[in-house]
């Protein structure tokens, strides 16, 4: 595996008596990574540690190959950051703000002026770049923040809730922009969000953080693949089939006449697939088989499974999916 852009091992951070991060370990590769967690999970605190703005209490953290606690300014020169808040100076023109921040990241005046203009064109604010930010909508301000984060051509961009406050159309456009930054322009992106669907849409990798520790981390395919199994629907003899499948070491979940079959801890017999075991058990008991399909899981399933032992309730589910409680 190529050198990860972020490598964390047992990172901990507390504020006073409040333990915000207890045990954060992850390897973030190049590409777009979603940092997923409900509000208050510790995402923004972790981003602060990545930027070297807070000192960690314990553990090891490497960002772009250096420790942000000791090499903070050097690392921050190579990182773009878009904070969660929407406040920006109202009387400053977008082009001036982006140029000023590019200069702070080390670009000479001429280069920062040109790149500020290019970045604003890229995010769709080319015609609006000389407007005072105070006259812009929330969607346009989010774009200004994104332009400011990429104008100095960083190696890594940290985006904290970049779609917060956007309507569905603006949200789609913002996600498309982030997708381009990560996949077309080759800038690694860490997208902090509490919205599962947007992470699922554009991220290559996902880190799920809950109650201050990493619950799941890996590529989107890996996370979904870890839960791959079969969905079986029977019209009779459910108990008998379930007993047979469990006797050969498969995990079986029951929902009425529907079975969720997953590989257990014991290895499958050589040459036998899960399909074979299920069809054999169904045939052996003479059960009626209505449906036998591959079971696919959504990121929501992965997330909720990761959080279940820690008390995810309907409010949290609603917050993550945007669905009503």
């Amino acid at each position: 595996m190529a050198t990860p852009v972020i490598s964390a091992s047992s990172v901990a951070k507390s504020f006073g008596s409040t333990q915000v991060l207890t045990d954060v370990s992850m390897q973030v590769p190049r590409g777009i990574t979603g940092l997923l967690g409900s509000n208050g999970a510790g995402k923004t605190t972790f981003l602060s540690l990545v930027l070297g703005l807070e000192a960690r209490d314990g553990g090891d953290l490497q960002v772009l190959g250096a420790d942000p606690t000791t090499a903070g300014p050097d690392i921050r020169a190579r990182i773009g950051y878009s904070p969660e808040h929407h406040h920006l100076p109202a009387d400053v023109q977008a082009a001036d703000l982006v140029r000023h921040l590019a200069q702070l990241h080390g670009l000479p005046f001429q280069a920062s002026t040109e790149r500020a203009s290019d970045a604003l064109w890229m995010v769709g604010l080319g015609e609006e770049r000389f407007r005072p930010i105070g006259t812009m909508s929330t969607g346009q301000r989010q774009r200004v923040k994104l332009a400011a984060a990429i104008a100095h051509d960083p190696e890594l961009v940290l985006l904290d809730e970049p779609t917060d406050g956007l309507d569905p159309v603006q949200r789609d456009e913002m996600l498309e922009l982030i997708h381009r930054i990560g996949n077309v322009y080759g800038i690694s992106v860490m997208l902090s969000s509490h919205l599962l669907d947007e992470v699922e849409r554009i991220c290559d990798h996902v880190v799920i953080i809950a109650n201050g520790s990493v619950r799941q981390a890996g590529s989107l395919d890996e996370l979904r693949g870890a839960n791959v199994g079969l969905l079986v629907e029977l019209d009779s003899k459910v108990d008998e089939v379930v007993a047979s499948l469990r006797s050969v070491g498969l995990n079986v979940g029951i929902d009425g006449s529907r079975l969720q079959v997953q590989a257990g801890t014991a290895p499958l017999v050589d040459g036998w697939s899960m399909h074979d075991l299920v069809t054999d058990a169904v045939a052996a008991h003479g059960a009626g088989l209505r449906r036998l399909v591959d079971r696919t899981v959504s990121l929501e399933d992965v997330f909720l499974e990761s959080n279940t032992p820690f008390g995810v309730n309907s409010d949290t589910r609603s917050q993550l999916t945007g669905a009503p409680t």
Partner: protein
Amino acid sequence: MSAQIHDRGYRAYDGERAGERWAIRSLALHSVRRALGLKRSGRHKIAPVLTIIFAFVPAIGLAAAAMFLGREIAENLPSYADYYGLISFALLLFTAAVVPGVLTTDRTSGMLALYLASPLTRTTYVVAKALGIFAVMLIVTLGPVLFLVIAFVFVDAGPTGLEFFTVFGKALLAGILAGVFWTSLGMLISSFPKRWGIASVAIVGTVFVMNFSVALLTEQADAPASLVYFAPPMIMGEAWQRIFGQFSFDLDALDGQPSALIIMAAVGYTLALTVGTWWQYQRIEVDR
């Protein structure tokens, strides 16, 4: 046919990248522009323009008087040592009306979070802001008095020979000390509230309460003369006079104080305010 905007694409930047010192310089220059209201609406230019007018008009008037009324009359006019009294209103106006605008807006507009996500640290942020404010403050504390020294020479009413360099050096010392003092005072008080208006009121209130209460206690209530050391703005004004070898005669309590102690107290307060500002910004909460 409607015009079409083509995708300008994205180009990687492989040019020169400067470091932390460049970031400090950039923010300091940006702070100078903010303080002077450049590239901002007209109302942001009112306070700095008035400040500069109030600071320079007496110097221009004194130089003109010396030129037209002759050397003998010029010698009886207020001079370098008295100039602090002539710019005290301009100093207070600038410190109260402009300094908070350079600092508090970074917190209310979310810029502080963006600055601290750049190569700047909390310390270099304060250094950059202080350099920017100090540079503009020097227009008030140093500009007019240096102008006066040079103008008096040109109209044949100023020091000559070696004395010119002595007076020039004293003007430089007094102007820089006053500049650092008022920069630090304004920055320290502005680092507490998030609102510009509250910081402005707090600066004016602090200066008036300290000066007025010390004057009242020492003049009317027979409090010990050493109480004057508890009014830093008053001490700074007296230090300016003592640098030029004069006494202000503002308060009887100040008369008996040794010049070295007064100047040391002014320097001490300046250092304490500077360290206080730095310390306050190490612990300030940043909204992210």
